[in-house]
């Protein structure tokens, strides 16, 4: 999902990470290919919560304690873009559909939530209809209608007010020209985009067909907001609950507490167990202290879900009892280096290949934190947890193949190598380590890299993500990374491989992939309503990216999560690659 999220949290402990990056060793994780859930587990074992529900229970009561080392953007469902937030928001908010609370790949499948069933498409995938369940109520007892869902979606599109959320609805809904926002143009008729013929029905009209619209309907933006309770950007201070819990205390930057929402009717909600009596969420907890508290049982969940800090990592991996409490999921996130295909001599395919051949792939893995905390050596851009992924084997993934690299250089017409500039985010030690590893490895084949660090905040807006800056400065390689907004090909790939998303004004995440063939495949995908066929096409795009050597993949990120003590129904959801927060209970 959002690349900022996990990285921002990881950055907190980054200063220590270099010293510990070599930690680890031992077996690697295996994924059940068919996605079926294994038998429930209750005994501690490494990865026990990865493919099975750990410590299953229906016992109600208790206080579930969560914490996070920083604050995240917002608890307003229309104003949030953090994976942890999309996971957590479901405790108090119900979107039209949501991810099935189940371990592993099963968790990526969608289940109807507010809606009775998944969306029905008509008009060749341009119109999507949902019917709300009967008996839905907000926390104040007023019934939830389709109009509240429509209002919620429309308000989430005002990016001047609610700046944080995604723009999928802005990009796809067929809105009238004169509509600006629910706040500025409240009277404009928006039925061309969303219709609510009655209180139970909501119909979305898209500009062009999109077969995967259910993934949009799973966005927190479809969590209903009553118009008369909307206070714009201040709505985050009192979100109207539609789920089993409502906010009791909201202290920005300090803490949230949630208590049971009496107006939530379990009969309308087949997927939520609503076990704890309340939730306590502490914000801004010292990251190392947070890990220690989870290890000691004083705290249950690190809301960030991005894994333990380097300080605790050594302890967890080194102590068999603690390691047995750990899960090591692979996230839908790839760390890679963009090979800029329009900066000479990298406009030549062979020169690009030389970079990949020459790279020390193990060195890159270590730069990102090694096998457990860094990730698995990536052989393609698409991570394994995304539908359509297939194992590619186009390049060796060892410590660098000098001969093949030199052959490629010769084919490129640069037998003595060349010089180029590599950019990275200066305040990210892992990216600096990546750049340094590559600099060393490529020096062996005659490719000289000059490393340039740029500030993280403006890396995409002003530097590596701004085409004329890249060209003017001759940046041939740019450290990059991407996480899926949701775990399907569109959610992962659409922002980083489609050349038509590239804006001259900057802010692009796609730095190097400008390929007509890929663009054509993407158009093909949009029109396709069959999931399996869409997935296969994303796989083909991944293959093309690697064949054309547009990126040097680093790792598919992995994180080390620690299962809390005394908590039931713990498992890693394939939807977010962190513990599923929906049905946790207190023992």
């Amino acid at each position, binding site marked *: 999902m959002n690349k900022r999220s996990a990285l921002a949290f990881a950055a907190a402990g980054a200063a220590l990470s270099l010293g510990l990056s070599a930690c680890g060793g031992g077996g690697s994780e295996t994924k059940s290919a068919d996605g079926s859930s294994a038998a429930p587990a209750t005994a501690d074992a490494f990865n026990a919560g990865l493919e099975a529900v750990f410590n299953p229970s229906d016992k109600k009561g208790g206080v579930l304690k969560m914490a996070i080392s920083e604050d995240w953007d917002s608890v307003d469902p229309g104003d949030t873009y953090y994976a942890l937030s999309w996971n957590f928001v479901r405790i108090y908010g119900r979107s039209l559909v949501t991810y099935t609370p189940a371990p592993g790949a099963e968790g990526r499948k969608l289940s109807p939530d507010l809606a009775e069933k998944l969306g029905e498409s008509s008009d060749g995938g341009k119109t999507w209809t949902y019917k709300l369940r009967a008996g839905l109520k907000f926390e104040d007892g007023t019934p939830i209608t389709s109009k509240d869902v429509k209002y919620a979606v429309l308000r989430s599109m005002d*990016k*001047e007010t*609610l700046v944080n959320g995604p723009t999928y609805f802005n990009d796809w809904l067929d809105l009238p020209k004169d509509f600006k926002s629910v706040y500025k143009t409240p009277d404009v008729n928006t039925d061309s985009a969303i219709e609510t013929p009655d209180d139970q029905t909501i119909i979305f009209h898209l500009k062009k067909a999109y077969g995967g619209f259910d993934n949009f309907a799973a966005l927190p933006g479809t969590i209903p907001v009553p118009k008369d309770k909307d206070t714009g950007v201040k709505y985050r201070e009192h979100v109207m609950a539609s789920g089993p819990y409502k906010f009791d205390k909201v202290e920005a*930057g300090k803490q949230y507490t949630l208590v049971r929402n009496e107006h939530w009717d379990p009969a309308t909600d087949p997927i939520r167990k609503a076990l704890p009596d309340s939730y306590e969420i502490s914000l*801004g907890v*010292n990251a190392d202290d947070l890990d220690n508290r989870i290890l000691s049982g004083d705290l249950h969940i690190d809301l960030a879900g991005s894994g333990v800090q380097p300080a605790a990592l050594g302890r967890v991996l080194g102590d068999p009892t603690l390691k047995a409490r750990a899960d090591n999921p692979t996230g839908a996130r790839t760390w890679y280096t963009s090979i800029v295909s329009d900066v000479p001599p990298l406009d030549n395919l062979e020169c690009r290949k030389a970079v990949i051949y020459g790279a020390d792939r193990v060195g890159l893995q270590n730069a990102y934190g090694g096998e457990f905390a860094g990730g698995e050596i990536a052989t393609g851009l698409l991570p394994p947890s995304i539908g359509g992924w297939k194992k590619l084997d186009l390049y060796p993934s060892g410590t660098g193949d000098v001969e093949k690299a030199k052959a490629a250089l010769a084919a490129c017409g640069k037998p003595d190598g060349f010089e180029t500039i590599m950019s990275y985010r200066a305040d990210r030690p892992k990216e600096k380590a990546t750049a340094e590893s590559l600099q060393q490895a490529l020096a062996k084949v005659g490719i000289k890299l000059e490393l340039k660090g740029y500030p993280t905040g*403006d890396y995409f*807006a002003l530097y590596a993500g701004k085409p004329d800056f890249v060209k003017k400065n001759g940046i041939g390689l740019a450290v990059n990374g991407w996480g899926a907004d949701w775990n399907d090909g569109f959610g992962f790939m659409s922002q980083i491989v489609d050349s038509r998303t590239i804006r001259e*004004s900057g802010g692009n995440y796609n730095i190097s992939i400008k390929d007509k063939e890929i663009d054509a495949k993407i158009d093909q995908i949009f029109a396709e309503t069959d999931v399996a066929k869409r997935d296969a096409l994303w796989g083909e795009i991944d293959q093309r990216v690697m064949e054309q050597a547009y990126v040097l993949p680093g790792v598919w990120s992995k994180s080390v999560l620690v299962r809390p003590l005394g908590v039931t129904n713990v498992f890693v959801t394939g939807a977010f690659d962190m513990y599923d927060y929906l049905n946790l209970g207190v023992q």
Partner: protein
Amino acid sequence: MVTYIIRRLIGAVLMLVIVSMVTFSIFFVVPRIAGATAEGFASRYMGRSANAEMIAVTAEKLGFNDPLPVQYGRWISGVFVGSEYDTGATIEECPAPCFGYSFIRRQPVWPDLVDRIPVTLSLASGAAVIWLLCGVATGVLSALRKGTVFDRAAMSIALAGVSLPVFFTGIVSLVIFSYGLGITAPGGSFTPFLENPVEWAYSLLLPWITLAFLYAASYARLTRAGMLETMSEDYIRTARAKGMKESRVVVRHGLRAALTPILTIFGLDLGLLLGGAVLTESTFSLKGIGDYAVQAIVTNDLPKIMGVTMVAALFVVLASLIVDLLYAVVDPRVRLG
């Protein structure tokens, strides 16, 4: 004396004006010189899905295109008369003193700071009492037993105290005392004093001791040096020649004089701490001014950073003012000047 006070007060106000200008320059003028654009400033407050024209609109809305003196004037006038901010649905008032408005958190900074001052105050005051008592007592004993095992041990511990960072001692002591032995409160605990004084003290005990250790160490060294100096002064010999008990000589004549310079340092230390015990607060996850500053910096929330800087500066300036006035009370020789 009255003119002295007035002169110092004017100095303090001038100092705050200068601090406000420097702060503003650091965050607004220097980045401009370094090439940041109005859009660059605005993009900090936008989500990652923001496009160029939205950023341009926001830059205009937040006034980043205005000349810098106008921006500075607006910021300062907010402090005195308050400002207003658009929340989309409504207009939010930021009443005076409006020390800025966070466009990320969408909240005025001042109420946040007011809300957090009790935490920092509790932490700083409790720790100050401990370090002053322990540090000074250790320093006095060390000076009186100069060269003994006690002196050497105390000074070694003091050196360790000055050298060890709080984020290390804090985390280690939490692991040992809170999670291992379970005798102190876990990180992040805080109960307001008025709600339950016992609980207040219990929850802050470990942060107090950790923070106090750092300062006690330097105060022990300062006190020891000061005591060694004053105890060899002629007036100490005079006091002894009067037949005074040694304990009274040490406390009333020796310590009294040795404490005067320590008072200055203490005042400034306390002032700095009230502006945020940054490391201790973030180590123990205490929601004080320092933690606020860290969050502001991590999220690059300029209005927050400016607000917290100004409040911290206010504390330091106030503290040095109070120290100056106190000094005149404590040392009669200063009153003439």
